[in-house]
């Protein structure tokens, strides 16, 4: 395996980590207005993700940073091409991030409502936009012979990229509901369990449509063969069906493993389908960015590989430890929170 191939794999790994981990945070966010009926409910829901969402979001920053360092051309062309959509994504990211720390900091009646909606809207918009942007890499956007994006923002939208975006949102929603059914208690837990069971079939259908469409689009626009992308695709279909089964029979722990697997395998299918391209050109296929023509030189990749080999296990170690520290199921707060106590 060459170093650019390895880094393509690492970039895929960081994106998968982002969608799997921040995915349930997005789901919890979207569920705030849906099943968080009282302030106590919402407080309990938020507390499940409060200690971890920030670190989960860093997976996005690292995916971006790794792309910049390992594939500067990919980073430059994707980010400048998706300009308008990224402005929207940044708006959502900023308001959502702030909502966590600021939401409870004033008693003004509009204040809490505003930040709850900011969190919920971010939970919907961010996976939607990144789902659209990543799938557009495969569907293709116009790229000229200077490796520059040469289209308009609308080129990122297609039936396929919209399906991908909606499917990712759907998986996040069930992922978050299942997560809440594991981490909370009382009415919140019951509502989350019921909602997960009801939404799981719809989400599963979307996820299956997404991976099947990915294989078809890969064949159509990326001259990709069915193998090996069909392997994660088939596993994603199985995982999506499992989500339906496990939520139905009330095995929440396994359901969570299955939602995480659905998300991870669906994104993996996308990256398998993309390889060896990183960004397909819809104008002239030969202008497509590839793992080799978009990557940094050998020395840079070598340095980065050493750094990643040392740091990634450490990061995974302390992140896993964090989940261990906060493993206990939460109960509804007996007394209202005191400000800044």
């Amino acid at each position: 395996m060459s170093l650019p191939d390895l880094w393509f794999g690492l970039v895929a790994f960081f994106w998968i980590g982002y969608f799997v981990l921040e995915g349930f945070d997005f789901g919890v966010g979207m569920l705030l207005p849906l099943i968080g009926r009282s302030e106590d409910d919402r407080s309990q829901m938020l507390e499940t993700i409060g200690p971890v969402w920030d670190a989960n979001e860093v997976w996005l920053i690292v995916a971006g940073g790794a792309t910049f360092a390992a594939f500067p051309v990919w980073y430059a062309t994707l980010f400048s091409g998706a300009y308008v959509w990224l402005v929207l994504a940044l708006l959502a990211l900023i308001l959502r991030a702030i909502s966590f720390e600021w939401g409870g900091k004033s008693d003004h009646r509009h204040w809490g409502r505003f930040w709850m909606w900011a969190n919920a809207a971010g939970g919907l918009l961010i996976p939607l936009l990144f789902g659209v942007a990543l799938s557009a890499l495969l569907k293709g956007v116009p790229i000229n012979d200077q490796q520059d994006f040469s289209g308009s923002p609308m080129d990122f939208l297609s039936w396929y990229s919209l399906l991908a975006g909606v499917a990712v949102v759907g998986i996040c929603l069930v992922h978050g509901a299942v997560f809440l059914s594991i981490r909370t208690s009382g009415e919140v837990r019951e509502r989350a369990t019921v909602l997960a069971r009801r939404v799981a079939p719809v989400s599963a259908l979307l996820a299956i449509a997404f991976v099947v469409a990915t294989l078809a689009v890969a064949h159509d626009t990326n001259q990709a063969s069915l193998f090996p992308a069909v392997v994660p695709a088939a596993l994603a279909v199985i995982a999506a069906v499992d989500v339906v089964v496990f939520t139905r029979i009330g095995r929440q722990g396994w359901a969570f493993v299955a939602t995480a697997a659905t998300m991870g395998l669906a994104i993996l299918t996308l990256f398998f389908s993309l390889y060896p391209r990183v960004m397909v050109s819809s104008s002239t296929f030969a202008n497509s960015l590839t793992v080799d023509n978009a990557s940094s030189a050998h020395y840079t990749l070598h340095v980065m590989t050493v750094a990643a080999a040392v740091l990634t296990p450490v990061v995974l170690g302390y992140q896993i430890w964090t989940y261990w520290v906060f493993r206990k199921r939460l109960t509804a707060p007996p007394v209202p929170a005191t400000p800044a106590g």
Partner: protein
Amino acid sequence: MHLPLAASVVELSRWQFALTTLFHFIFVPLTLGLAPLVAILQTAWYRTRDDRWLQLTRFFGTLFVINFAIGAATGLVQEFQFGMNWSEFSKFVGNVFGAPLAMEGLAAFFLESTFIGLWLFGRDRLSPRVHLMTVWLVVAGTWLSSSFILVANSWMQHPVGYSQSGPSARPVMTSFTEVLGNDWAWWAIGHTLLAALMVGSFFMLGVAAWHIVKDRQAQIFRLAAKVALIVAVPATFLNLAVGSEFGVTIDNHQPMKIAAAEALWNTQKSASFSLFQIGGFTADDPDPSFSIEIPGLLSFLATNSFKGTVQGLNQVNASEQQAYGPGSYLPDVRLTYWSIRVMAYLGTISMLIALAGWWLWRRGTYMTSRRFQWIAVGGIALPFLSGFAGWIFTEAGRQPWVVQGLLKTADAVSPSITAGQVIMSLTVFLSLYAALGVLDFILMRRYARLDLPEIEDAGSTSATPPAVAF
């Protein structure tokens, strides 16, 4: 506007980058500076088990978190903008510049964001010892993060550890240790972290001063003021020294920036330092109509010798023309001249304030000097503004280059974005930031004026109660 479209995309993108970066840099130095101070407060509690330290830890911890949230959120814009607005820059420098940026994420962001979660929510689940460790790891994460980003920025100021296959070919990294060992980077890291300690300690000093002057739990806030002074006095002193030595490094690598900082049009031996001047900022009007000067000081600052030679704008421009082809290589002289002065003057005033506080403390009249307490409240703003001016100097003084000697700002912009798109994004960011800036100020002021939290659950230390609510 009759600007050619490409030029206006460059100008708009520059404004966007400058304004979003400066806004981001309200929160960054406070995060960097307040984190160790909060950690010190918590350490003092851990050592003494005196609840007053715990009250202070939680009080300043809450302010820290309000600030941290917006700093982290606005930092995302910075990472994305390189690709969004400056795709040619990203393609050109990614080979070298991308590496410290990616490592910042892997080594530093994960550290700070994971452990801030543990610190905030873990006070009932972790032992006091482990909980204390989490806050120090947040400090380590934030300081490491700023160091990596300064290594990246320093490479734009003074590129090292790379080779090029041709004059305009993309640089390829040849030595990561040289990139990390860039002398510019180490001065920049020292200067920036000391500046952040100034921001953090002046913030703590000012907030404590308000409580002291209003006689609200003054005896407990006295402890915070003491910690703040212990940090502020050496930080202000050291930073003047480090900043002045940094000037010599800058002069070695970017003589143009130093010449512009002094509006020195022609090369001079034992050049005098101009404290203040009117006019003299353009090639047509090189002589100021009025100025106050200190003989020989500029030579000393730039070369460490009163007799040293400082190159003039015209001479550096001529030699750059020889090296890089025809054109003007002058930055905005007026902006460069005034930004470094605002930085240095405000830094000096900060040092005098810190010294005055120390002197009053020694005399035993610190708590009763109402005048000083009000000065300390107003003084919160000074290190912030000084830092702003410092970054304007650093970045504007490097123009027309974005990477010194390798890539011009005008050639760095994304070819695929339109002026309309940048006007849209600029409007979005400016309105969002204006609103967030106002709200942040209101929140910070409100929480800075609250009484200290009561300690009912002795033994746990984080800033806010675990419960969060909307």
